[in-house]
């Protein structure tokens, strides 16, 4: 049983890598890049929501802010696009510092509301600063420069951008499984206890917030380069809502769940738009409600719980045999009433 669990991880990793490489063959290539970017965005948000216990409702500021900054760097400097994307990510991190500083001391719904408010301020600035951002037309004509290579083909550009996305995923994975990630988990589960152990909880939350923002910026910057423009929608609150929805759909605190949620939402949106359907919000909203009601831990979270229950690691058998692997199951509240 331990062996099979140990084997499961690399297997999953290989499967994920294979999917990432095969994606442009399976779906329309521009959509493939959208999925990759949103998946990284979802994972970055999950770092905060699932692994630190903070629900940010303002991550559009970092995704969209980085989109504009990456776009501006690409338009005005002609530097290779990865530099522009990393510039966007750096901007998101810097932007997250004051926003995080002022909001991490708040909890629950107050944190969500304050981050939302800050994101709307960013939206306001982007909308008003027309000379720089193009206002509601967005920032147009963002080039895909990489040492003079022709990347106009979306299929090729997907592979040019994929290393950035994968690097982002490795970063999220590393953070979650670092000493820092251990402290974040303890803060999520019991902040007062973490404080009593000598941990300055708010400072850890702030660093988590900045890291999450930087990785969201990485995704947003690449998204803008991939589309050739940065849209006003990218800093609008619906973007913040969409990424939260993806994480909840896939399963909070699972990383893989965010990928599934992103793929589902992006693919569905694309399908409905292509079919000329207007009421996208109604369809995605309905699916969201159904999935949240049926799979209370999201798609991936529920699937994982079922697999673990089948292999005898269900909530009914606490601490049986193979507990000492440092990856305790998150099944404490399975039995909680609806």
């Amino acid at each position, binding site marked *: 049983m331990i062996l099979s669990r140990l084997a499961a991880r690399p297997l999953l990793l290989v499967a994920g890598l294979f999917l990432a490489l095969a994606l442009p063959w399976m779906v329309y290539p521009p959509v493939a890049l959208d999925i990759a970017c949103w998946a990284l965005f979802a994972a970055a948000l999950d770092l905060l929501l699932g692994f630190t216990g903070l629900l940010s409702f303002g991550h559009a500021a970092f995704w969209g802010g980085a989109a504009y900054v990456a776009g501006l760097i690409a338009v005005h400097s002609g530097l290779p696009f990865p530099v522009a994307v990393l510039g966007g990510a750096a901007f998101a991190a810097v932007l997250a510092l004051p926003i995080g500083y002022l909001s991490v001391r708040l909890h629950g719904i107050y944190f969500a509301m304050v981050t939302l408010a800050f994101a709307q301020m960013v939206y306001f600035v982007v909308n008003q600063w027309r000379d720089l951002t193009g206002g509601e037309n967005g920032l147009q004509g963002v080039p895909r420069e990489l040492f003079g290579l022709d990347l106009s083909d979306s299929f090729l550009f997907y592979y040019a951008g994929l290393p950035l996305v994968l690097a982002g995923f490795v970063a999220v994975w*590393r*953070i979650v*499984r*670092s*000493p*820092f*990630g*251990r*402290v974040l*988990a*303890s803060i999520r*589960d*019991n902040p*007062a*206890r973490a*404080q*009593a*152990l*000598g*941990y*300055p*909880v708010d400072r850890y939350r702030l*660093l988590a917030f900045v*890291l999450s923002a930087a990785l969201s910026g990485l995704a947003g910057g690449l998204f803008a380069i991939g589309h050739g423009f940065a849209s006003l929608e990218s800093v609008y609150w619906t973007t913040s809502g969409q990424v939260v929805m993806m994480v909840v759909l896939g399963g909070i605190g699972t990383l893989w769940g965010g990928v599934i949620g992103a793929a589902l939402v992006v693919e569905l949106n694309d399908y409905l738009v292509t079919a000329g359907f207007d009421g996208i919000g109604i369809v995605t909203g309905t699916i969201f409600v159904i999935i949240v009601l049926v799979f209370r831990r999201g798609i991936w979270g529920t699937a994982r719980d079922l697999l673990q229950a089948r292999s005898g690691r269900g909530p009914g058998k*606490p*601490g049986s045999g193979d*507990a*000492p692997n*440092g990856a*305790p*199951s*998150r099944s*404490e509240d399975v039995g909680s009433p609806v």
Partner: protein
Amino acid sequence: MEGPVLRAQGLAKEFRGFRAVDGVDLDIAEGSVHALVGPNGAGKTTLFNLLTGFLKPSAGRILLGERDLTGRRPEQVARLGVARSFQITSLFPQMTPREHVELALAGATGLTWRFWRSHRLLDRFGDRAAELLDQVGLAAHAEIPAGNLAYGHKRALELALALALDPRVLLLDEPTAGMGVEDIDRTVELVRKVRAGRTVVMVEHNMSVVSSLADRVTVLQSGRVLVEGPYAEIRHDPRVISAYLGDPHAED
């Protein structure tokens, strides 16, 4: 025994007009075991929360040696050498006892900021963690998620966590609450063992525990100090008897 290591001067805490702690002076002698007793609502836990920075006092001062602790945050108080356990077991349900203690040991090192390293970095605290867990009798349970531990083991883990901080002053909030006789005896032995080289302040309801451990006892009532002295003295004080102890022979 020497001068006071931890002092409270005129400490008060007011919640919306209700004075939970009302001008408490407390001198905790270095190396002593000092018990806080009193009926429910006497302000014992509030006093603990004030001493450890979880609540900000409305008035008064807290001193650790020469250092002013007043208004400091909980993590600062913990780093400066005042560690606490919680009355209601307060753990991280998904982490194992070993991981708990490693986290407590790592806090002072700064290693826990390293988000780019593997959590195996914390393995270096494994030996010390094993020692501490052994000391509190948890060696056999080091790898069980804390949420699945038996109650007595959870309380023992609380103690191991406080000890991992290697504090000058150890604050134990009802360490024997909800325990059976055997666990109580074990806990008393444990506190006796770990008090060497430090000062212990404990809130405790069980008078036999107080009598066997405490050098001094402070009796609180309605947020004020009613009496203070060695157990043998205060147990016969008529004010204490009427406030709290009831029949003085009830324990025998």
